[in-house]
């Protein structure tokens, strides 16, 4: 292990994928345009709720749902009891249910001409009352978005436990009503689809910016009535995902059907205007939280009523309910909560359908829990650190099973809290406060379940439950190691980290390892890259495939060295017996080109192994972190400045610490956006009001401070190398920590902020409510 440390598990190896991007040689969907390609512009709904009466088409290629009956509706039904099913038509049928819903595909040689066609369509519709707000969706007499339902709820989940007795015994009780804003994931590259029909193979080839190409393939086959073998999905370089590209798209179905129909390549590239107006699709939650604590801050019980604005449809594959259904099980967070009552509602509204964004429901849950804890602490007159220390799961309890059955694998949560607090000069903040400065200190502590498997997702009711992750490892005749995985790398650096895993097992130089990913014709089936699962699942699968491949190479190598299997070992990419050695290149050459030299009993599977992997138990890894923030509030303008940002993070064994830091930092920048800037406002008619990136504010280099990360490395007992999933973690903690810092700054003024993002206007409104502005 020591001989390989510089390139194996634990090395901050520079990324193999960097070179092509640094020279402008990345290849994204929009860069690919075969001869004869036709471009699509979609005619989209201008209103949020209406009866669609007809479309008058201009001369040209314009297709509505009636023209493409071969496309079946998308169906993503949760298996949870009580779920209300609905179809999502690829092109609108009968009704329009949100602004931006595709109605017709307009096809022309250039996008500009296609847009001209869309502009020349005349839409006939009859407006219906609009449900623009998730709480209004449940009001008695509210207009129904899916008329065969009794009300506008996809699903309600609950855990009943009577907590009324706590009023009599608790030293403190707080109730808070909190809202998070609807956001856009806003990867820098939009979605894009290029569909081609290969008449020779009778195969549909769809090149698409996708995080889960195999799931997309299954969805395309289902909705187009094709055999899965007739569909090949290729995800080339993808310019950021974050959940936005973890979906079967209506646009993919339409482009595919058109490519088959027209016998020409058909391409659609989402532009930023349609992205912002049609697809602001995440994070919008409402919480009513009540919490009881004793005099030391020990939680006695929590009650939460959570509503998620799930939008108009249930998206494939995660369904409209993943987010809300998860809230009940993750709300207790990293704490030992003794009693708990919840109700969650996935509300159907006339807004774009919800997709899980990095962190999924955890960002909202962490915000609700962490701000509630601070409110309790303020009431009790104890510190934010003290109330957390009183409730965190202690290390000696690991592995710990909480009251809703969530299993934490390992870690020292209180130590992360201690280190985060120690990294900030809290006394200096208190001194500045005493001098009258509006500055505050805020904390959030959370854990992130990642790489959770079959049992967990089955329990959450999603229609696509992940099983064993597979990887293929094979030598090519020149001795290069090729790894094939069915998930996709779009910034996570898997081309590097999986090569590091292979190096760890086989000693092959990562420079001689190629990762093949993102092509369903070349890779084993996978549910894809999401849920912080890639490094645990694909890492484990690659390790196992390489181990088995190594066994086969050892057997051949032993024969070449004229010794037995027991006398050889793999050392630095060679089969070694005493002083003699053969390289893996020689082993590969022997199998492929000099089989006369193979031993008689050689494994006929050759130098190609597909192996499956799933941790046991499959309840997932729990990375965790404590975020500590110092924020200054300008009480005149409402502007918030982040002065310090410290993270103590435990992701178990880090396969590539540099890449892990990159994941954390990128996530934090997004979390800062959630906390302070990002919001898609809708008016009362559910019209989105931010149509450019000058209105929808993404954090830039001046908004993100220089963030300090400290690592703890408690191995997960259940994964191949002790690694834990943590790709989403950075995006979870910031809103809680930042708003706690703001509220700490505002507390002397009697003001408290409850809703995200904490824009200057909201800060000023909070001050005004306290009579301070």
């Amino acid at each position: 292990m020591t001989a390989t440390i510089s390139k194996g598990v634990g090395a901050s190896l520079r990324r193999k994928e960097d070179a092509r991007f640094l020279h402008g040689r990345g290849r994204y969907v929009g860069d690919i345009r075969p001869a004869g390609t036709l471009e699509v512009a979609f005619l989209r709904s201008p209103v949020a709720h209406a009866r669609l009466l007809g479309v008058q088409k201009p001369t040209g290629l314009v297709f509505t749902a009636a023209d493409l009956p071969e496309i079946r509706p998308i169906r993503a039904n949760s298996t949870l009891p009580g779920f209300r099913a609905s179809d999502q038509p690829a092109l609108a049928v009968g009704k329009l249910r949100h602004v931006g819903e595709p109605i017709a595909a307009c096809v022309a040689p250039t996008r500009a001409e296609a847009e001209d066609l869309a502009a020349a369509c005349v839409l006939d519709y009859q407006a219906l009352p609009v449900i623009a707000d998730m709480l209004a969706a449940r009001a008695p007499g509210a207009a129904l978005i899916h008329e065969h339902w009794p009300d506008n709820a996809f699903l309600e989940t609950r855990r009943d436990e009577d907590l009324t007795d706590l009023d009599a015994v608790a030293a403190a009780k707080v109730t808070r009503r909190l809202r998070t804003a609807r956001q856009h994931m806003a990867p820098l590259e939009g979605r894009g689809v290029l569909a081609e029909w290969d008449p020779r193979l009778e195969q549909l080839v769809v090149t698409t910016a996708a995080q889960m190409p195999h799931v997309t393939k299954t969805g395309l086959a289902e909705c187009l009535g094709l055999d899965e073998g007739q569909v090949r999905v290729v995800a080339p370089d993808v310019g950021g995902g974050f959940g936005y590209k973890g979906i079967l798209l209506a646009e993919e179905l339409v482009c595919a059907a058109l490519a088959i129909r027209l016998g020409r390549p058909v391409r659609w590239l989402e532009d930023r205007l349609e992205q912002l107006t049609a697809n602001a699709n995440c994070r919008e939650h409402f919480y009513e939280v009540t919490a009881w604590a004793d005099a030391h801050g020990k939680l006695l019980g929590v009650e939460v009523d959570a509503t998620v604005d799930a939008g108009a449809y249930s998206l494939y594959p995660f369904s409209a309910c993943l987010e809300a259904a998860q809230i009940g099980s993750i709300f207790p967070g990293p704490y030992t909560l003794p009693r708990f009552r919840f109700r969650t509602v996935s509300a159907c509204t006339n807004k774009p359908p919800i997709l899980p964004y990095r962190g999924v429901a955890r960002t909202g849950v962490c915000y609700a829990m962490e701000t509630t804890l601070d409110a309790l602490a303020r009431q009790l007159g104890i510190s934010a650190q003290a109330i957390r220390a009183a409730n965190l799961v202690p290390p000696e309890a690991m592995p710990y099973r909480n009251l809703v059955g969530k299993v934490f694998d390992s870690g020292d949560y209180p130590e992360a809290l201690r280190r985060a607090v120690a990294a900030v000069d809290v006394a200096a903040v208190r001194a500045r406060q005493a001098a009258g400065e509006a500055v505050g200190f805020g904390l959030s502590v959370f854990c992130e379940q990642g790489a959770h498997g079959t049992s967990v997702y089955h329990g959450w009711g999603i229609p696509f439950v992940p099983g064993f992750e597979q990887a293929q490892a094979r030598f090519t005749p020149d001795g290069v190691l090729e790894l094939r995985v069915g998930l996709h790398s779009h910034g996570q650096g898997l081309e590097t980290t999986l090569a590091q895993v292979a190096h760890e097992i086989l000693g092959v130089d990562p420079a001689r390892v190629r990762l093949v990913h993102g092509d369903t014709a070349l890779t084993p089936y996978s549910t894809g890259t999401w849920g912080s699962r890639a490094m645990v699942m694909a890492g484990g699968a690659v390790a196992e495939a390489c181990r088995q491949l190594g066994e086969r190479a050892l057997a051949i190598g032993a024969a070449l060295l004229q010794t037995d299997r027991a006398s050889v070992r793999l050392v630095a990419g060679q089969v070694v017996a005493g002083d003699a050695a053969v390289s893996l290149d020689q082993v590969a050459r022997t199998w492929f080109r000099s089989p006369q030299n193979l031993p008689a009993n050689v494994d006929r599977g050759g130098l190609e192994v597909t192996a499956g992997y799933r941790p046991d138990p499959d309840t997932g890894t729990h990375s965790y972190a404590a975020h500590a923030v110092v924020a200054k509030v300008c009480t005149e303008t409402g502007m918030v400045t982040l002065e310090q940002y410290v993270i103590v993070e435990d992701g178990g064994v880090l396969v590539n610490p540099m890449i892990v830091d990159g994941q954390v930092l990128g996530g934090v920048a997004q979390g800062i956006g959630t906390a302070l800037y990002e919001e898609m406002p809708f008016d009362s008619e559910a019209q989105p009001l931010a149509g450019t990136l000058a209105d929808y504010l993404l954090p830039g280099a001046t908004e993100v401070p220089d963030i300090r990360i400290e690592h703890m490395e408690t191995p997960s007992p259940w994964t191949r190398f002790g690694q834990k999933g943590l790709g989403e973690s950075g995006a979870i903690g910031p809103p809680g920590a930042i708003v706690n810092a703001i509220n700490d700054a505002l507390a002397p003024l009697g003001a408290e902020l409850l809703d995200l993002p904490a824009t200057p206007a909201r800060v000023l409104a909070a001050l005004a409510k306290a009579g301070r502005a």
Partner: protein
Amino acid sequence: MSITLTVNGTPATVAAEPRTHLADLLRGELLLTGTHLGCEHGVCGACTVEVDGAPARSCLIHAGACDGASVRTIEGFGEDAVMVALRESFSAEHALQCGYCTPGMLVVARDIVLRLPDADEARVREELAGNLCRCTGYRGIVRAILGVLASRRGAAS
């Protein structure tokens, strides 16, 4: 309309609709797809190229306005010493993930390095305000640029 311009040192004459912007011309007609489009309204900076020696947003320039101009895209920097140093530094500092913002970032970074040899972290961040990255959180990008600035100052003294 017909437009004559120099792209990456090579003269080119292309036919384009007047409403075409420079980025579409570069990507579509000249197959220089290293220039990326993130917003097409001048906010994200992904489309930044060099026009007559200065960074410019190719999504905001009509192709017609480029007649006679000299344009350099990410594909055109070859062994330019500053660009070589920046590529190295970007990789070392993990200044890129999905790579989509990277071409625009590099063009702007090179301009910062040449124009502001004494820039500190705050100034570098300010100068990057017109380039969005959704993946990295900017720390790697800022450090990569500061690293090149520092080594050039070291070499100069």
